[in-house]
């Protein structure tokens, strides 16, 4: 992965090269996310750990921001990677794209350093502009927000101009519309109000309409592209499925926003709207799961019927991660989301570890998986490998990461149940109720398991990095030897 730029294996495919640059930073930030998660997990068990030095709030802030930013990096990388394949032309503004990459990376570095070393500011507008906006997931200070908007506009212009110049496939049309919404929504999180209800109302426009609408459609488009690329799925079928997915994802996800408006001061009618539409949100995720597996089976069957032995896919690890995505999206976003989406349940689960359980499996299952799959596609093309097969390291990576995240999710779900039943149902919330639940033996046990499963995930991540750094070179050498 590292040598791919130095040796310029892309033979002039600058857009893919740019995509790889984004993948590299994404991977570093992914590592940072996991490290911060480990610190925060330890703080749950050992409260004095790094107290007043590197508090939970700091670790947690960097944990979730590194998550969002690595995913955005990997998403931008994926788009630059697929752009020439889909449009049939080279991306128009490579120089500008590279400049935007360096500007974004410099800005992210500064923001992270400020988060880590300055941490908090005084109660002034200046703090919000320069240090920390203090709104979960959108903590980036305002100057960085503006920088992000500029960089994203540059990116969008690049994609749009390339799209207009080249072939306009269904996948690209979906992406163009989706990225427009995704970029535009960020603006909803860029203002200050002293009304906390109004604050949370618009905050959810960014958070929900990203992760439960536009990001999901983005994943649909990526999966469509990857299926064509990896198993040679038929474009007509893949694109038809993509439109059905868009219909169902936006049809349920846009008004599903209502399930965040149950308790923030917003009117009661969101109970019904939020419940109905968010209850439908798992439907497209089932469809996506069926679609991936169906296409895989179909192409494999066709190859067998035509007398081609062996696996139909040309990239084993990428396919493994994409299938994990299909299942993880359904399980994490669909099932774990549905668990607590009805207001009758949510009044007790809202703001407990239940949410954390859902958050972990959903972000991993729906997004991390497919973006890792895209990185494997990147490696395959960077080294000019015709058929990339999984190594021991690839298998260890996927096994340990999936096992670790599932373990964390189950542990957090148990912690959540304890909290819901004791803190909320039995004791009715409040300061003493909160700590009464935090001291329950089963709650503490769950937090210990979560930390251990976090370590498992981290070991898996080390295997992943090791594999991404070496698999391409080895496969290329093996290919050269065979030829």
């Amino acid at each position: 992965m590292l040598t791919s730029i130095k040796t310029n294996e892309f033979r002039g495919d600058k857009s893919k090269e740019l995509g790889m640059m984004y993948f590299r930073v994404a991977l570093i930030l992914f590592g940072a996310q996991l490290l911060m998660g480990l610190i925060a997990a330890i703080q749950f068990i050992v409260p004095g750990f790094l107290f007043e030095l590197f508090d939970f709030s700091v670790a947690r802030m960097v944990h979730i921001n590194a998550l969002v930013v690595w995913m955005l990096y990997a998403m931008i990388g994926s788009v630059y990677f697929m752009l020439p394949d889909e449009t049939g032309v080279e991306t128009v503004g490579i120089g500008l794209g590279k400049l935007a990459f360096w500007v974004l990376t410099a800005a992210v570095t500064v923001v992270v350093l400020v988060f880590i070393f300055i941490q908090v500011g005084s109660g002034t507008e200046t703090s919000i502009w320069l240090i920390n906006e203090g709104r979960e997931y959108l903590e980036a200070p305002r100057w960085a927000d503006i920088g992000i908007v500029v960089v994203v506009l540059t990116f969008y212009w690049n994609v749009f101009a390339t799209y207009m110049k080249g072939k306009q496939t269904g996948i690209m049309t979906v992406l163009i519309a989706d990225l427009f919404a995704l970029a535009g929504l960020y603006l909803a999180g860029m203002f200050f109000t002293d009304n906390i209800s109004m604050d949370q109302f618009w905050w959810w426009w960014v958070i929900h309409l990203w992760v439960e609408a536009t990001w999901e459609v983005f994943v649909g488009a990526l999966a469509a592209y990857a299926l064509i690329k990896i198993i040679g799925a038929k474009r007509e079928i893949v694109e038809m499925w993509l439109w059905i997915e868009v219909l169902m994802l936006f049809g349920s996800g846009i008004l599903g926003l209502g399930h965040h408006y149950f308790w923030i001061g917003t009117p009661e009618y969101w109970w019904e709207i939020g419940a109905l539409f968010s209850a439908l949100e798992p439907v497209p995720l089932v469809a996506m799961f069926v679609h991936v597996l169906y296409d895989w089976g179909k192409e494999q069957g066709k190859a067998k019927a035509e007398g081609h032995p062996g696996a139909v896919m040309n990239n084993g690890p990428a396919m493994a991660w994409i299938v994990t995505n299909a299942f993880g999206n359904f399980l994490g976003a669909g099932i774990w989301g549905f668990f607590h989406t009805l207001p009758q349940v949510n009044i007790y689960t809202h703001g407990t570890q239940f949410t954390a359980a859902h958050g972990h499996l959903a972000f991993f299952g729906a997004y991390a998986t497919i973006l890792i799959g895209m990185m494997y596609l990147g490696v395959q093309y960077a080294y000019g490998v015709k058929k990339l097969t999984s190594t021991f390291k690839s298998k260890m990576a996927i096994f340990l990461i999936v096992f670790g995240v599932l373990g964390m999710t189950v542990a957090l779900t148990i912690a959540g149940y304890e909290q819901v039943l004791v803190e909320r149902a039995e004791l009715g919330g409040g300061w003493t109720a909160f700590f009464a639940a935090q001291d329950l033996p089963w709650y503490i046990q769950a937090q210990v398991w979560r930390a251990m499963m976090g370590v498992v995930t981290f070991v898996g991540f080390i295997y992943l990095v090791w594999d991404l750094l070496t698999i391409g070179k080895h496969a290329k050498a093996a290919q050269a030897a065979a030829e």
Partner: protein
Amino acid sequence: MANKKVSVWTDIQFWRRSAAWVTGFATILLIWLSFDTIGQITMGTNADLKNGVDKRVPAATVINYHIDYKMNKKRGHEVPVIGEKQLFFGKEWSPKDAEALLRLGKLTEQAKNCMDCHTLLGNGAYYAPDLTKAWLDPAWQKGGPMQGMTGKNTVEEAMAEFLQHPSQYPTHARMMPNLGITAEEAKGLVAFLKHMSSIDTNGFPRNFSKTVAQFKAGDTNAH
């Protein structure tokens, strides 16, 4: 006749159009509902408070009133009840001063990153207690452990004292770190918390700090 439609169900154009229509319709509905919601969650005015007009989010001057959280039989859950006038930090705040104090509180809440340990309106991190109705928490009232610990005589003074020196008043092995909150910022934060407790959250959190006896009697523990 290769292009003849076999069935509408396998027709890309049909699905593309359906996707566009459904997305458009959902978006329009969301925007329409948002207009209604924004109207309902816009802060009320000082006059509303004086005239007893219930607003989902009252004006900043709600800090001059006693706030309770009581079961509303008709709605089937607890709602904030704004009562008689009550001094806040020993005085009644003018609309201008109250707004400035709330603003300072909200800015401080963001700058100190409260949401990455606590939840506000149930959103945030799950490392520390939910603050939605913190102002009404029995622990902070007279005779409650938090007020007792700080040695202060009012909820606001106890909260402000705690916020400035949190690690001097440990309530649990998991403590709040010292975030360098000044006396003024602490006042602002308490105003922010008091204001938040007056927001109509459709009954969240349910049965706030209640005992079974109180639940049956329809009474409340919040003050």
